[in-house]
Structures are given as C-alpha cells and as structure tokens.
C-alpha cells in the first residue's frame, strides 16, 4: 500500500481482511470444544493446581501416562487435599495458583517477559537519547495537585510494594506492583513542573534487580542442577515466608518493573535534543 493508493482500495482491503479473520474465528469457534465437554482433568493446569507435577512425572516415566490413543491420563494422578494454613512442604508453596504457574512451573517465560519489558524500555530510552531539556507538561499544577500527588505517592508506593511482596498469597505480583509504583512516579511528574527523577538510582535498581533474578535462576542451576529451580523450602501454604524463591523473584520483578516503567515515563515526558556527535 502506497500513500497515493485510493482510499476506497484501502478500505476494501481492510474490510476484506477483517471479514476473513471474522469468518475464520467463527469457524474456529464452532469447532471449539464446548465448556461442558472439555475434560479439565486432561490439562496440565490441573496438575499445577493440585501441586502434583512430580507424581505425574513418575507416572509418565513408568510409561502408562499416555495410553489409549494418546489421551493423557492426567486424571489418574492421585489427589491430596490442600488446606490453607496447614499443608506444609508442598512441591510449590504458593497460595495463589497463578503465581505458582507464572513464577515456578513456567518461570522461564516470566524471565523472558521481564526481558521483553527491559528491552522495550531500553529501546524507548535509546530513541529519546540526547541532551535533556525540560518537562513537556507545563500544566502549572495547582497547590492541591502538587501537594496531593506527593502525599498520594507515598501511599501508592506502599500499595505497589504490598502487591508484589504478597504476590504468592494474593492476586497480583511483580508486574502490576511495578506498574502501580510507576503510576505514582507519573503523578509526581504531573504535579510538579520541575520534578527530576534520580537517574542513577533508577538505573541501579533496574540492573541490580534484573541481575538478582538471573542469579536466583543460576543458583538453582548450580544447587539443584536446573535453571530457575526452586531451591528453598516451601513452608506452610498461606504464610508470608513460604513458597521458597517465588517471593524473592517477585520482589526482584516488582523493583525492576517499577524502575523500568518509571524510566520510560521519565524518558518520554522530558524533551530531548538529538545529538550525533
């Protein structure tokens, strides 16, 4: 598509693409298994929820896991009830199932996601590289706004920290916690015309917490012989000190995401002058 293509051609192309996608999705939805017919017991996620992957691995290694026309017999995995505040030394001690999947069973994906965010922040900062001028928002914030944002910042910061520290117990975790912190920093920028963030501090936070994540992973490799393996005791489910390395990783992620998104806001809100010398 060139710039001089007639607008009608563009619209027809767009419309036909949308139609193809919609027809395709409709077709796919008609063939999708209905809610009642899906056998949830066949899903890997059932084993995650039961925290019983190791038993399933044993059944897999003994060779009777995939039988009868390749249907996995995940429902055969023994079920043992998990009681909040009582069950101890489970294979994954996080009370929040999503966290146990995201950080423990599929922790490698999370490391990748953190890297994606890191690269996006790095790319944004590289595009706006140059001599820094001043804040582009000249809103002339009122007294209420500038005092209010400063008070709110403390509360928002505390709430963000709460979200990621309690990631293994309650909904939320490193990513939303960091985003909450960054929105507090955004408030500071909006409320104070001359606000300057501490660049060295942001950089240190970002790098050190990222390195902490990888070093936790490498500790797993050297102690349990598997990258990103949980090498700490998992404790009693529901305790703050439980779930092994999940809390540590979520603290690292929270600090990293908070510093990164703050740096993105910072590099976008400040005007720069290009220099290639």
């Amino acid at each position: 598509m060139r710039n001089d293509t007639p607008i009608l051609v563009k619209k027809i192309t767009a419309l036909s693409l949308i139609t193809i996608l919609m027809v395709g999705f409709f077709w796919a939805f008609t063939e999708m298994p209905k809610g009642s017919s899906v056998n949830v017991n066949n899903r890997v996620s059932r084993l995650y929820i039961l925290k019983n992957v190791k038993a399933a691995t044993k059944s897999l290694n003994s060779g009777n896991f995939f039988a009868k026309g390749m249907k996995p017999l995940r429902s055969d995995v023994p079920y043992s009830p998990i009681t909040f505040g009582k069950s101890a030394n489970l294979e994954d001690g996080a009370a929040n199932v999503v966290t146990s999947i995201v950080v423990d069973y599929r922790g490698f994906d999370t490391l990748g996601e953190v890297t994606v965010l890191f690269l996006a922040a790095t790319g944004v900062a590289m595009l706006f590289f140059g001599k820094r001028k001043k804040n582009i928002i000249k809103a002339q914030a009122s007294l209420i706004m500038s005092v209010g944002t400063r008070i709110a910042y403390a509360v928002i910061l505390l709430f963000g920290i709460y979200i990621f520290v309690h990631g293994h117990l309650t909904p939320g975790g490193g990513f939303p916690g960091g985003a909450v912190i960054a929105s507090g920093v955004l408030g500071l920028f909006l409320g104070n015309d001359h606000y300057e963030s501490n660049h060295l501090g942001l950089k240190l936070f970002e790098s050190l917490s990222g390195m902490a994540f990888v070093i936790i992973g490498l500790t797993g490799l050297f102690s349990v012989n598997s990258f990103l393996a949980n090498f700490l005791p998992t404790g009693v489910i529901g305790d703050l000190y439980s779930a092994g390395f999940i809390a540590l990783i979520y603290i690292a992620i929270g600090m990293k995401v908070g510093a990164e998104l703050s740096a993105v806001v910072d590099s976008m809100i400040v005007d720069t002058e290009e220099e290639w010398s």
Partner: protein
Amino acid sequence: MIIYIAALVVAVVITTALIAVFSKKLLSSIIAMGLVSLGVSGLFFFLQAPDVAITEAAIGAGLSTAIFVIALKKVKKGESEDEE
C-alpha cells in the same frame, strides 16, 4: 444479577472500542482505549481472573493511557515546531 452487570460492561467495552476506532480526535481515541481496558479488566474480574484484572487495570487503563497522551503531546509539539 452479575450477568446483567457483565452485559452492561460488555456494552460499554464495545461502544468505547467503536469510539476509539472511529473518533476523529486522537485524544478521545486514547481516552476511549483507556476505558476499553478498564471495562476489560472488569470482565476479567467477573471471569474470576483477579490477577489479570489487576494487571490490566494498572497497565492498560493507567500507565499506557498516560504514555499515549504524553506521546501525542510530543508529536503535536514536533508538528508545531516544524510549522514555525
């Protein structure tokens, strides 16, 4: 009861999504997109996915809307400088 609230949220999401696509002003598109994220995060909550709902609300409705507005402001500033 909850199904009616959810249906209302779905209607809001679809309406704001259409506004975001067809609006002539970029600023209103961005605000409408923020509303879409907010509605979607509500839907995630109804679907019993509080983790996703929190993330969507914090990132989709909050931070990315703000970043879009800042980017729009930057683009407009660049345009007015070119005219000078």
